[in-house]
């Protein structure tokens, strides 16, 4: 996918997702299209329209992208196994958020985690007050845990697993 044609000198990052309970994720080509596609998921607070999206109240946007992957093989009787480098695997995003049981976005994430097969478009937006650069990807929620220790505010942890090759960059 082409990289965005913008450079933001300073920005705030936010995470957004499609708001529908059973969304139709954007096609791979549309993940790179800002107008009427990615912009509908990004809210007005980050330069989008937000008509089909909601913000996830995450503590911090985790690292995203991809990392190398390796396939392991071993042959019975051989002293050493073989590691075959393969093409890049998308990075799973482990996310921590303050647990608010009435937050519709977190409830939707919990519902997705229970289901396990809901594909949804997520967007990481970088906004400098005027321009937005967006990294959009399709992913599934893999786990959802609530950490309710008495000594701190309740938190929830969940992981978004991006689908391979389904990502795109765009900008406003």
């Amino acid at each position, binding site marked *: 996918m082409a990289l965005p044609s913008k450079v933001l000198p300073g920005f705030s990052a936010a995470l957004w997702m499609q708001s529908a309970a059973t969304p139709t994720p954007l*096609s*791979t*080509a549309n993940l790179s299209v800002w*107008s009427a596609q990615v912009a509908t998921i990004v809210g007005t607070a980050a330069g989008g329209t937000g008509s089909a999206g909601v913000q996830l109240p995450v503590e911090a946007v985790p690292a995203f992208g991809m990392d190398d992957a390796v396939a392991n093989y071993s042959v019975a009787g051989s002293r050493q196994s073989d590691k075959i480098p393969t093409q890049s695997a998308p990075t799973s995003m482990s996310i921590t958020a303050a647990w608010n049981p009435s937050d519709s976005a977190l409830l939707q994430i919990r519902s997705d985690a229970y289901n396990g097969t809901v594909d949804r478009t997520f967007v990481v937006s970088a906004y400098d007050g005027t321009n937005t650069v967006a990294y959009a990807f399709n992913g599934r929620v893999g786990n959802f845990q609530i950490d309710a220790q008495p000594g701190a505010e309740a938190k929830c942890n969940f992981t978004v697993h991006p689908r391979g090759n389904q990502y795109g960059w765009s900008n406003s």
Partner: protein
Amino acid sequence: MKVADAVKTLIAAQGDLALAARGIQVDQKELAAAMAKVQADSAEAVVMRLLVKAQPPAPPPPPAEE
């Protein structure tokens, strides 16, 4: 394949579009003409850019006869 059909196929596809584009051959003149008309921030432009990258280089011109 016609450019319009290739674009339609790729826009609807999920997965690795660059790989899918490599499996499609289109007429390069038709593709260049379509590129000139398409809006930059659109799904059509995204897949056409991939098609341009995926097309084999044009064959060299025949040697001039003397």
